[in-house]
């Protein structure tokens, strides 16, 4: 029975990792086609030299960093507030934003920006993308930080208050340090989600804000370009590394 379970689990992980492994392997293939033709870094070089890709990567990075900073800040504060005492409506709104289909959220935001920005003759751009990313990352941050908060002993803060600290001090000097691993994990999560996003970004992006997923989608639509494989493999390693770091941090 146990052996059966073990082989099932092994098969499950093969299923989960097959596409990623294949992607990585073929990104080193010295040929455009499925036939293996030798090991080569040419597609990585081609990707690096492709200015559209590098610009998009830079945009994605800037957007992800900005949205992560704001989403983590707002989300952490919100999680703390909810931990103290739950507000059903806010929690419900947060979870709703978590499960709203991306296409609905994307078109709603596009409509919102068109109505708000058009009268001011302000274009869509990096700012609209960043703001959208903050909005949909928020709930993820709250969930992660809240989960972490629930493992903390509320009596620690009580003790601080008894010893004469006010609420802000209790938060800043007792809870916050204990919360840091959770905050770090949440921010890594927010970064990943933002870096990765295609549906919403493609709808609200403007002239200057072509992101990496948008370029990859466009390139891949015109054929399986091996450069896409190379970029994808690089992203998998990067984001995978971040995710693993996040997991370790969340455990301490």
């Amino acid at each position, binding site marked *: 029975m146990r052996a059966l379970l073990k082989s099932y689990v092994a098969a499950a992980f093969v299923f989960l990792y097959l596409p990623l492994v294949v992607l990585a392997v073929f990104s080193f293939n010295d040929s455009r*086609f*499925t036939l293996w033709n030798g090991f080569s870094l040419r597609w990585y070089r081609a990707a690096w030299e492709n200015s559209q890709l590098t610009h998009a990567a830079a945009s994605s990075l*800037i957007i992800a*960093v*900005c949205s992560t*900073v704001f989403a983590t800040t707002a989300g952490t504060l919100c999680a703390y507030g909810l931990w103290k005492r739950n507000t059903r409506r806010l929690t419900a709104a947060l979870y709703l934003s978590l499960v709203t289909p991306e296409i609905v959220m994307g078109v709603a935001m*596009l409509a919102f*920006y*068109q109505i708000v*920005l*058009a009268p001011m*003759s*302000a*274009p*869509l*751009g*990096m*700012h609209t993308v*960043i703001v959208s990313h903050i909005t949909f990352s928020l709930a993820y941050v709250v969930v992660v930080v809240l989960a972490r908060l629930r493992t903390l002993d509320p009596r620690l803060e009580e003790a601080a208050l008894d010893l004469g600290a006010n609420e802000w001090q209790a938060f800043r000097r007792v809870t916050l340090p204990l919360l840091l691993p959770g905050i770090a994990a949440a921010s890594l999560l927010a970064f990943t989600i933002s870096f990765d996003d295609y549906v919403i970004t493609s*709808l609200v992006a*403007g*002239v*200057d804000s*072509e992101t990496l997923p948008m370029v990859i989608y*466009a390139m*891949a*639509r*015109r*054929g*399986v370009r091996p450069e896409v494989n190379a970029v994808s493999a690089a992203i998998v390693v990067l984001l995978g590394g971040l995710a693993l770091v996040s997991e370790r941090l969340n455990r301490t």
Partner: protein
Amino acid sequence: MNRRLFLLSLPGLLGCSSGKTRRLNVFNWSDYVAPDTIPNFEKEFAVSIRYATYESNEEMLAKVMAGNSGWDVVFPSNYVILPMLENNLLAPLDHRRLAGGLDHLAKQFQAPSWDSDLKWCVPYMWGGTGIVYNRSVTPPPESWADLWSDRHGGRLTMLDDPAEVLAACLLKLGYSLNSTDPAELGQAKQEAIAQKQFLRAYLNAEVQDQLVAGDILTAQLWATTSALAMHGNTDLRFCYPREGFPLYADNAAILRESSQPELAHDFLEYLLRPEVAAEVAMKAETATANGAAIEKMPQRVRDNATLFPSDETLARGEWFAAMASEAQQLRDRLWTEIKSA
């Protein structure tokens, strides 16, 4: 606190672009310029160009519809010029700024049906839709009706575009591809649904790769994309169906919201230059509307029957026309029914 302020100011810093060089934002179809086209313009006029691409008119329209997309120059197909005008999206062209470039256009594009004074747009590239097929398909397809057969072994694709699929069905039935008659469209819908049993998928330009690799044997595809595919696989052939075929023309236009109208006009004038247009046409494997450019191209390119069909073939072609609202809604509903069947 200091850290927070610094972080808050970051977006502000990002907002300040390098204000020194003038910049033009160009939104074009993918694979529609030569590698040198943009850099040469940037050098000659000492400006920078922000260039991005799209795969369909709808993608472009979704961005520019509200009037604050930030783009200066776009390339709408002939049948979306009217909707764009109705929504007040285009800026009128000043012919004086185009320095006689319009004279380079081929005769049939100097007063096209969608903009007879060329007040709003300048024809850029044009093409038709036909059938690209692998030599191994026997007998080789010659008409749309041949796509309703299992000689393709199920490895057939049609374009993921309601206008194109309905056009093929309408032409197969002997009607005009711009038909708005509900009865005719209803029959076309039935045909499309009947075709699904022979069909692998609805794919656009991405089928090119599968044609080259051999996954797909036959596809309804634009001439220009077919030409690109044929480079990758010498077993591929192209034909313009007997019953007729759709024609489209992509035009350069300036958006009303543009803050750089003079520079945009310079860009349009640049694209009209015969050497530039010839270079684009040859590198992108597409037919240009620029007659003077055609004269500059080598004979073997001009003889390419895929891109430059003979006059008698061309006579079977029919330009796509803009659709009025009810017709558009009817076609859209039929497309949903076809996809859902």
